[in-house]
């Protein structure tokens, strides 16, 4: 039955199901449970058919193109699903499937408060938008679906419009994405200026006769445009406020998948369409990658809101992906095709991994928040005793994101390391030092990410509950645990069978424009994954097996040796004082030492407020509190001055409308004279 239905049919079936889901949930908006079931149910069906389409293209290579031309001459709704878009469709459908399953029961706590029909509607439109974005092959059509995706995600971010800062986050997000789209529009227009058509294939063919200056301009504009959507460092300020504001299964999708559409376009545009890349392009993206990953993880360390922490980690992982993409572009400009293929495989593999474990972490955080109704890590503690399964899945997620061996994070970070090591071996001293910086950045990022997730997991799940709300929490419902369980299982499977998965991704990369004949970069006979130049070899399944076997052996030997000994449950050693929950480590305490080490970069500030019993006698204080903050340098040094500049310029321009009638007639008279003098001859 599998090869009965063609990819085209299943792809458009997915879109059709999403459309039905969207309209259906609006119709059933009155009854909450029906709207929820309808919206998420159809999203599940659609993502299943999306998975089928992606798998068929990835494995059986049946990519398809389909063109409908429209009333306007430049606009033609042309779809082209090649292996690269199929890979992203696979990610989108996989995470959408699990997010919808998770959403089925997570959304229950919205029942009386918000209109679930609207949520279902925009959720399906959002998924359809993403599927369109990765398959659109005409610039004009791409811009339309790109904005529709942002529009739908804007409505999802402001879905819980009772809280005020959700609205602020939503409008900041919408403004940033719209400015990004303006830059993307400029990039496509510049392409249209020299090539005369907006269709990606036509652009691909005659990219040759584009002047260097306009190519650089296209690069800069699209870097800004797609960088805003991907959330790279200078343009990331919307991400930590927008992703947490959305309902959890949507923020899992946004963090896991939506920012990857920016990466998709980076690869599609820079690697495939503008194939003759400049050297400084790759170096710039590499530097952005270093900064995004390092600063992302440092800001994550300072966060105490669990969803903001995960959002900053998305920035960090985007940085790691950009390391892969940047090194690919450097190798392309130096015409080292094999190394470029390897770094692209690393970037794509990390995109897949990040999508899985970030969605898993967001779902874990979501179920914790839905039980404790607060996002502040300081108010958790000891949740592992009340929500054991969620804790276990969150632990697997943390292990995966800190790139620890048996899980998938390890292999993609290992592969990114290998590409950077290749880069270090290039002769040019300048590029070699950039790559060494990149290797150092990646190493420190790995370490700091591990520290950050020990803090997050420890402060949330371990030790004793720090407030009484935690005592009433109970395990999240079955579909939420099912979603998390499947995702945890996929992280493990991707980790173990990394060799097989990277062969598929190599197939994807070979399908790209300039990479047809590149093969033999690495050989993976199922078990091991060995670079063809024999530089490095790793076998992820062996690591898992050996660890398991030896663990089993050690456990049994110790058990046999000491089975007579009794295990007594006592209370933690408390030096005699009564041990209350306030004495255990909190998230602030944990991260404070790292913040002090990196205080040059983070600029932490500490404000004391002391309130005395009576003003003049300064001995007996009524209350004393301390406020620890991290300065948001981007807001202070770039976005706020820009905003003030526009405000002052607009008040200057508003003086035209000064209310005096004589002045108005004078304007007409002046413009008449000016035109007569300049234009008339």
């Amino acid at each position, binding site marked *: 039955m599998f090869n009965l239905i063609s990819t085209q049919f299943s792809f458009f079936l997915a879109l059709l199901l999403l459309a039905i889901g969207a309209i259906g949930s609006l119709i059933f908006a009155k009854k909450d449970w029906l709207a929820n079931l309808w919206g998420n149910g159809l999203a599940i069906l659609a993502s299943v058919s999306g998975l089928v389409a992606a798998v068929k293209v990835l494995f059986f290579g049946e990519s398809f193109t389909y063109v409908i031309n429209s009333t306007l001459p430049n606009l033609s709704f042309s779809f082209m699903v090649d292996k690269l878009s199929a890979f992203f469709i696979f990610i989108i459908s996989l995470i959408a499937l699990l997010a919808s399953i998770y959403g089925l029961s997570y959304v229950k706590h919205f029942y009386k408060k918000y209109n679930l029909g609207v949520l279902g509607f925009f959720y399906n439109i959002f998924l359809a938008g993403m599927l369109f974005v990765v398959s659109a092959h005409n610039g004009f059509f791409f811009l339309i679906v790109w904005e529709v995706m942002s529009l739908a995600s804007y409505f999802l971010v402001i879905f819980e419009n009772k809280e005020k800062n959700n609205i602020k986050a939503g409008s900041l997000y919408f403004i940033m994405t719209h400015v990004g789209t303006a830059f993307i529009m400029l990039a496509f227009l510049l392409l249209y200026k020299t090539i005369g058509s907006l269709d990606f294939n036509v652009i691909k063919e005659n990219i040759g006769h584009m002047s260097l200056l306009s190519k650089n301009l296209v690069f800069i504009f699209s870097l800004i445009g797609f960088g805003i959507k991907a959330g790279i460092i200078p343009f990331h300020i919307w991400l930590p406020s927008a992703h947490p504001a959305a309902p959890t299964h949507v923020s899992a999708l946004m963090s896991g998948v939506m920012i990857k559409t920016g990466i998709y376009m980076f690869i599609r545009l820079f690697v495939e369409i503008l194939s003759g890349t400049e050297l400084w392009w790759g170096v710039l993206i590499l530097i952005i990658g270093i900064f995004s990953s390092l600063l992302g993880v440092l800001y994550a360390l300072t966060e105490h809101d669990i969803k903001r922490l995960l959002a900053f980690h998305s920035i960090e992982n985007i940085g790691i992906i950009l390391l892969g993409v940047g090194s690919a572009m450097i190798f392309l400009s130096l015409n080292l095709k094999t190394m470029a293929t390897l770094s692209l495989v690393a970037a794509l593999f990390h995109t897949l991994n990040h999508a899985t474990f970030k969605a898993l972490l967001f779902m874990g955080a979501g179920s914790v928040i839905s039980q404790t109704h607060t996002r502040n890590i300081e108010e958790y503690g000891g949740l592992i005793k009340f929500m054991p399964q969620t804790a276990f899945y969150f632990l697997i997620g943390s292990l995966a994101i800190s790139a620890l061996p048996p899980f998938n994070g390890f292999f993609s970070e290992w592969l990114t390391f290998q590409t950077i090591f290749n880069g270090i071996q290039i002769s040019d001293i300048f590029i070699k030092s950039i790559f060494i910086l990149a290797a150092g950045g990646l190493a420190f990022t790995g370490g700091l990410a591990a520290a950050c997730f020990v803090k997050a997991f420890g402060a949330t799940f371990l030790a004793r509950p720090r407030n009484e709300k935690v005592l009433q929490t109970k395990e999240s419902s079955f579909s939420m645990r099912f979603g998390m369980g499947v995702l945890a299982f996929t992280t493990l499977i991707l980790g173990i069978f990394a060799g097989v998965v990277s062969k598929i991704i190599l197939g994807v990369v070979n399908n790209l424009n300039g990479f047809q004949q590149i093969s033999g970069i690495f050989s993976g006979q199922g078990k091991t994954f060995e670079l063809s130049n024999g530089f490095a070899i790793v076998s992820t399944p062996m690591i898992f097996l050996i660890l398991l076997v030896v663990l089993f052996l050690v456990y049994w030997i110790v058990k046999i040796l000491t089975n007579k000994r009794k295990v007594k449950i006592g209370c933690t050693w408390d030096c005699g004082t009564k041990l209350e929950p306030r004495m255990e480590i909190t998230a602030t305490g944990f991260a404070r030492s790292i913040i002090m080490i990196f205080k040059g970069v983070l600029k932490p500030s500490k404000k004391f407020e002391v309130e005395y019993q009576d003003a003049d006698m300064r001995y007996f204080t009524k209350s004393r509190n301390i406020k620890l903050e991290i300065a948001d340098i981007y807001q202070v040094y770039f976005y706020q001055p820009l905003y003030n500049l526009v405000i002052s310029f607009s008040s200057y321009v508003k003086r035209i*409308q*000064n*209310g*005096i*009638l*004589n002045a108005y*007639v004078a304007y007409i008279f002046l413009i008449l004279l000016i035109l*007569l*003098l300049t234009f*008339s001859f």
Partner: protein
Amino acid sequence: MILTLLQIIFFLEVLMFLTAVFMHLVHKNSSLILLYQLQSLIVIIFVFSSAIKISSILLIFVAILMFIVKVIIAPYFFNNKLIKNNQFKFSSSTYLNAPLTLLVIAALTGLVYSHYFKSLTILVKDVDNLFLALATILISIFLLINRKGVLSQMVGILSLENAIVSFAFFSGLEVTPNMQIGIIFDLLIWIIIVSILATMINEKFGTLDSTVMNNLREE
């Protein structure tokens, strides 16, 4: 001494130009309206002379109609409605003092006679009448910019209309008589509406000085 018809017309055109200039300088509203009446008279003479030249009865009827509207109805509205019962003898002063206004008027006439407008010379032989008419147009627009009173703004618009009609007459771009009737009828309605609005301004703002009306601006 027998002045030929052309010389008379040129003399009348100079007189019209002077009325436009004096509109800037005069202070009393009533004398402003007197100047407007004089200007309309001159324009009516022009129309009358062109009517005789091409001897069309319709054009004479147009001249009479113009006479009724511009010389009788308009001043009646302005005098009785506005000035008599609200004692607005003195209209508020101009933005620029007298010498500066004259300087600007001189500059505008200089501009008209400069080479920018020499392309208009192809239209007709006696060019100086044409340029004087164009100068009166620019000066009446400047009148609107310069004077602050509501009444003077109304008179400014009407003198601009007169100047355009005279320009049409001199450049030979005479519009067909029934069009002119339409225009005059339109002008009549315009005068009625403007005077009603002026009375409403007077009720609401208490004064006819237009500088009071500046609270519609971007705060």
